[in-house]
């Protein structure tokens, strides 16, 4: 790589498309452009890169000539499902099991619903299926749980079914047979037949998108893939052409929900895996931050306009989940686990008519009309309006970048909206604003507490990383509630943190196999199984990433006590397995189980079972070390100081807080509370007794001081109790 080379990450959001550009010296700049719905996101994509290039003083041509990698987080597949404008999909499945995707395991009504809606059985319907019944074709064939063929595939029925589907104007097809994870021969043969009959048709097999047990989840994953496939594929092709037409030979990588990148060629085949990848970039940024700063455990919190998202990094790795969900359809795809509640800057405050209590969310003013203070016609009081009234947000700030396109805030409109609410509550406007913030903070603290403690973990072992427009304003409060002492706000790029995470994520494939192995485990047998799946994935990586690629394998086994419900994934060393490593895996599993569920949850004498093995071929991408400044004096320079403003920190009387321009603070500077550090698109609120230090990389470390803590007590007493 030459000195002039650049890498970038592009993240398309609801209002803005963000781009982060990194150079070899570790300079990090960003650009924002309005998301361009009218041309299928294309101009927004390229404008954001150009805007970032301008920040580096480069022309469009220079940027594209120098880019060696463009990493992209796309929400296009998610949007297609949410808006129901995907392709007309046919489904070929095992005869007698045509209704699997209609049944949704009986969970269609409540899956993915907010807690507020779970009980609304009359009001909330089950979603319409993605494939109409007329386009679901059952084919005589059957494979059993060992992969043995019980009934041969009836090829004639396949041909008839496909012809029928073609006549019905099908645009994409999914094939999903029972037990194809044990024996994919029937799916592969069906695919061959369809390719002969309709060579240009987008085809997805169940075993290609999911290798896990459970026909509903696998079939719906195949269906979703086919549903979003043609449009997503065209979109990626269009962007790739745009990149080439601008003279760039940069590799084009797409963010996946598991936290790794796929080359566009792979992502065009498996777009279902991009669904839910939107917030994953931020957590991958946290993972890198953890490594940089030496923290093992991080709670990544993203407070945007409508939601508050939480993801965890435990022992340096993101906590993952097996199950993903989009618009009530749940399927198995390893994904970085992110929990979300309706508590963002745009969350609307309202009064419950029965209790008179003040509630915040889950309804949101969204980007349009947005909070009242945006002046776009919103009249409902929101969290952002409260933040503005309480002095947390600089009233002169402009949301968004670009000349003439930013949003100027209107404090009077915020006050008007909140005063109406205050009148209903019989309290002052400031008390109501403070109340909105307190309620929102409590909801966020509760979500984090349930997430962290629910996984058997202790919040005190974590630091919070806060990003997203509204995050740093509130972070101190929800972190303090949990007894967490440190909050990190990742520098000026905190409002484009997801794009940054995307830009530095490695290429990672996934390969998994369901097995039934009972203890005592045979090292050789397990090694053979791993080598088998790794050889297959090697070929794929060489083909799609390049012959000279250096692949590292990360191995995992999913284990449980025989007959127990809960399994845990345990990492293995990548070396050849032997009796010693097997012993270590068993020990690791047992201690992990004890740690999560308490020592009494171990069933004495129970046999262990390995349910599945997973290997991740990883191709490391080049990532720069973020540029470090020389450490300066602890006192902020005079030019960083802004005029004081009145800020309400918990009481009804304001304090005169010191205000700083975060961009002008230097590495090593310490700001003591009460103070506010204004940053582009957000601000850091510092209470008395708290302090913030800017690091040499430009991050802000907020120290909350020692507080009496409950969480440790809770976790340890919970473990003792069982």
């Amino acid at each position, binding site marked *: 790589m030459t000195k002039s080379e650049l890498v970038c990450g592009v993240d398309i959001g609801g209002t803005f498309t963000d781009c982060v550009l990194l150079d070899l010296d570790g300079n990090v700049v960003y650009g924002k452009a309005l998301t361009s719905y009218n041309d299928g996101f294309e101009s927004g994509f390229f404008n954001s890169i150009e805007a970032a290039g301008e920040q580096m003083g480069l022309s469009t041509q220079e940027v594209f000539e120098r880019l060696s990698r463009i990493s992209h987080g796309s929400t296009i597949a998610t949007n297609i499902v949410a808006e129901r404008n995907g392709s007309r999909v046919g489904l070929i499945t095992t005869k007698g099991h045509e209704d699997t995707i209609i049944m949704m395991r009986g969970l269609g009504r409540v899956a993915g619903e907010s807690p507020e809606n779970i009980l609304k059985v009359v009001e909330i319907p089950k979603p319409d299926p993605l494939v109409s019944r007329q386009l679901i074709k059952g084919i005589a064939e059957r494979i059993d749980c060992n992969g043995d063929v019980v009934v041969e595939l009836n090829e004639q029925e396949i041909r008839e079914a496909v012809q029928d589907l073609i006549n019905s104007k099908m645009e994409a097809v999914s094939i999903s047979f029972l037990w194809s994870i044990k024996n994919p021969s029937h799916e592969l043969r069906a695919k061959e037949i369809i390719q002969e009959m309709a060579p240009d048709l987008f085809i997805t097999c169940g075993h290609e998108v999911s290798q896990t047990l459970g026909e*509903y989840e696998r079939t719906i994953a195949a269906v979703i893939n086919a549903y979003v496939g043609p449009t997503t594929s065209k979109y990626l092709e269009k962007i790739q052409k745009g990149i080439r037409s601008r003279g760039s030979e940069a590799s084009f990588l797409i963010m996946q929900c598991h936290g790794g990148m796929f080359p566009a060629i792979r992502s065009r085949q498996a777009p279902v895996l991009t669904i839910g990848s939107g917030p994953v970039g931020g957590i991958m940024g946290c993972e890198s931050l953890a490594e940089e700063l030496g923290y093992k455990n991080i709670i990544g919190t993203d407070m945007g306009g409508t939601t508050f998202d939480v993801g965890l990094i435990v022992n340096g790795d993101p906590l993952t989940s097996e199950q993903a969900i989009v618009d009530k359809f749940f399927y198995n795809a390893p994904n970085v686990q992110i929990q979300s509640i309706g508590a963002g800057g745009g969350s609307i405050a309202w009064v419950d008519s029965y209790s008179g209590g003040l509630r915040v969310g889950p309804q949101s003013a969204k980007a349009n009309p947005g909070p009242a203070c945006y002046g776009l016609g919103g009249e409902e009081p929101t969290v952002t309006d409260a933040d503005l009234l309480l002095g947390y947000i600089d009233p002169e700030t402009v949301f968004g970048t670009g000349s003439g396109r930013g949003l100027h805030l209107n404090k009077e409109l915020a006050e008007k909206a909140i005063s109406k609410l205050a009148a209903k509550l019989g309290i002052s406007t400031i008390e109501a604003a*403070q109340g909105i913030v307190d*309620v929102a903070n*409590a909801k966020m603290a509760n979500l984090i507490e349930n997430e962290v403690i629910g996984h058997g973990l202790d919040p005190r072992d974590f630091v919070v990383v806060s990003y997203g427009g509204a995050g740093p304003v509130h972070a101190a409060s929800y972190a303090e509630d949990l007894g967490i002492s440190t909050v990190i706000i990742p520098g000026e790029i905190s409002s484009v943190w997801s794009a940054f995470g995307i830009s530095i994520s490695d290429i990672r494939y996934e390969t998994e196999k369901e097995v039934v192995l009972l203890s005592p485990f045979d090292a050789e047998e397990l090694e053979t199984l791993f080598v088998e799946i790794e050889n297959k994935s090697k070929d794929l990586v060489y083909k799609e990433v390049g012959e000279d690629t250096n692949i590292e394998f990360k191995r995992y086994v999913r284990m449980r006590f025989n007959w127990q419900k809960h399994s845990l994934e345990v990492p293995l060393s990548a070396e050849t397995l032997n009796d010693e490593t097997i012993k270590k895996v068993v020990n690791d599993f047992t201690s992990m189980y004890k740690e999560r569920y308490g020592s009494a949850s171990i069933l004495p004498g129970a046999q262990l079972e390995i349910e599945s093995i997973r290997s991740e071929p990883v191709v490391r991408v080049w990532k720069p070390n973020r540029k470090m400044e020389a450490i300066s004096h602890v006192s902020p320079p005079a030019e960083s100081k802004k005029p004081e403003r009145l800020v309400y920190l918990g009481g009804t009387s304001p304090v005169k807080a010191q205000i700083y321009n975060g961009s002008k603070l230097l590495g090593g500077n310490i700001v003591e509370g009460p103070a506010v550090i204004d940053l582009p698109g957000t601000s850091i609120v510092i209470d008395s007794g708290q302090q913030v230090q800017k690091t040499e990389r430009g991050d802000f470390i907020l120290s909350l001081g020692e507080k009496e803590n409950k969480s440790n007590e809770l976790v340890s007493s919970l473990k003792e109790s069982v």
Partner: protein
Amino acid sequence: MDKTLAELKDFWNGKEHAYIPFKPLNISPNVRLHKEYEEEIDPITFEVIRHSLWGVNQEHGKVIENLAVSPITLETRDFQTSLHTEEGDIILFGPYLQYFSGAMDLSIQYVLEHRGEQGINEGDMFLQNDPWIGAPHQPDVGVCAPVVWEGKIFCWVSNVMHQNDIGGIMPGSFCQNAPDVFSDPPSFPPMKIVKEGKIDPELEAIYLRASRTPNNLALDLRAAIAGCHASQVRIVEMLKKYGPMKVKGAMRKMMTASEAAFMDFMKSIPDGTWSERVYQEVALTGDRGVYKVELSVTKKGGTLIFKNKGTDPQVGAINAPFCGWRGTILSALNVILLPDQMGAIGGAIPHLKFEPTPGTLTCPDYGAAVSPAGIYSNELAISMANSVISKMIMSSMDPKLRKMALGPTPAQWHINIHYGVNQRGDYYVGPMLEHMIGTTGATLDRDGSFANGLWWVPEGKGPNIEACERDWPILYLYRNEHQDSAGSGRFRGGNGGILAYIPYKGQVTLGTHSSEGVPKTVGLQGGLPGSRGDTRIIKNSNINSLFSQGKMPASTEEIQGQETLTNGKGMPIDLSDTDIVEWNWGSSPGYGDELDRDPDLVLKDVTDRIISEEAAELTYGVKLTSAGYVDEEATKIKRLEIRKNRFKQCQASAPDNLEDLLSKNINIPNDAIQIGDYMFVHKNSREITNVHCSCCGEVISNGSQDFKRGSLIYEGTIQEAGKHFVEIDRYVDQSLSFFQFFCPTCATRLATEIKRPQDDHSREFEITL
């Protein structure tokens, strides 16, 4: 004469009869309760505490999900968590199995009244599974724990979890062949299983002793304890942070808020009584009887009174303990009436009065077998509670609220439980939980839905075939929507499902299996009932030959073999590997008369294979053209023909102007009470109360609200209740008929009813005007 309070307490004591607490509770002076609270709590602090308490209960559930091992508990969310006042009253409960709610407060109040002498202290927890106190059947084990602040009980936390096997004469503890409680699993009245933070090993040993899977039971006990403990610790933290006066103040305010929401609902309901009757069948293995179950709700001012008057005496193994029966009513209130309260309905409960008749099927005295209540009688009770609450809602003066009425879900939990030796040579028990895939009933403006879960277990999940085939020695042949199984109506119910399997590479005995003949899931306003559960066995089939010919049968019609008929609550059946078992889970009933259904919706149902073309014509009177469109003219003629035939069946003559009657505009007087879309009750100028048909406006019954008396009545066979019903004498010895009640003027169907000849028809409503 009404009993005095002392007499009531003495009678409903949890020993001979069910335990029903009456305020004030008799609490030992050794027990100190924290009762002080701040009355004026600001709206912000209130909301922060309210949300946190809700979060505490959620976390309680999460701990159980993490630690529990019983598959029924986890997949079908067969557990519940709750938060109570210092006196045990419910503040809120979770989104898990709803009817457990009715048991949790009772067990805490029993502990307060009967275990206080020895002291109830910090670190104590009580376990019970006594159906005469607080267990809907013995496998539903409850654990409750006080949250103690400065030596006083501040509040209580509690959970109930279904256990895989707690003993009794059938593996899995659903003992359908138990003649009495002495053949059921053991019932443990509340005992202090945790003392000062430590499990009592002696009591635990007793608790585990009767179970076939004691290790699982021990682990689930720890999950229950850990769940309560997590809640206790978080609440204590809140007390430290906000102070006990504020937290208690917020709890009280939550109660008053849910009370206000409930009273708001009550304002729109006229005073009156609404009733439902269903017949349970086959009291235990070998029995061939039919048994009547009644439920009524009376709304009087701000109070709802629930009675089971007229219910037959307790018998066999089909009894529903009082706490389960009560819980089914709380479930319907929570989900159908007050879903916005998110489980915090404590303030409504003091406005509910339960007045059961002791010694009956829905309030048995001690001695009755109750262990299979979880698949028979509790489901019947929840279906009936759903029905009476919906009938009451349909009489609301608020048209929006009337639309909240919901057709009931199946009145039995349909199941196959098999056991034997699996493909790996291990003993196994396989409960097939497809019923959880579920169905929902029709509403006043929407069809029910196949595979839409069960509203009373909102987050329950049905099984994947691959997971079952991995663990059990069976191979599924098919599992799909059960066409034409739902009750028809203006809005039809959701279909149930049907599946078949064969034993495969193992040894399989079919244990508990559903097989019933009496329609039990009643339709609203003339909608036809939901389907029955059946298990069919085709012995010595040609399945292997079909497989080798490359065929996958999708119904038993494609298979040859000898059918063996199953009996209600039959004994276990050994299966060979050429035997095929087919069973179905039940559907939901419809709403209204199917002749009123939009023909385009009928066509869509045919296109989507929800109903057959045959049903479209015979049931709905909708004729399709050869090109697959609705033949409007032929449909009109067919529907008129069906309507005229109704008159004929009832030995009456159709009026000449029948078509005109149906198309005229009906002006419903402003002071009339509408009963759904089909009837209205009105007092005329001569002060005579009449029930009118909303379709033609004419009077159905003059001077009486018993509209059935004025209706055209057709007595038909049980098979006429729906396509999948069979001759009833296969199951029972008593005669039963399917009655349909039509408007005497326009023959619109207004109601249906299953009835024994000796019983009067059921009175659906009596409104106080």
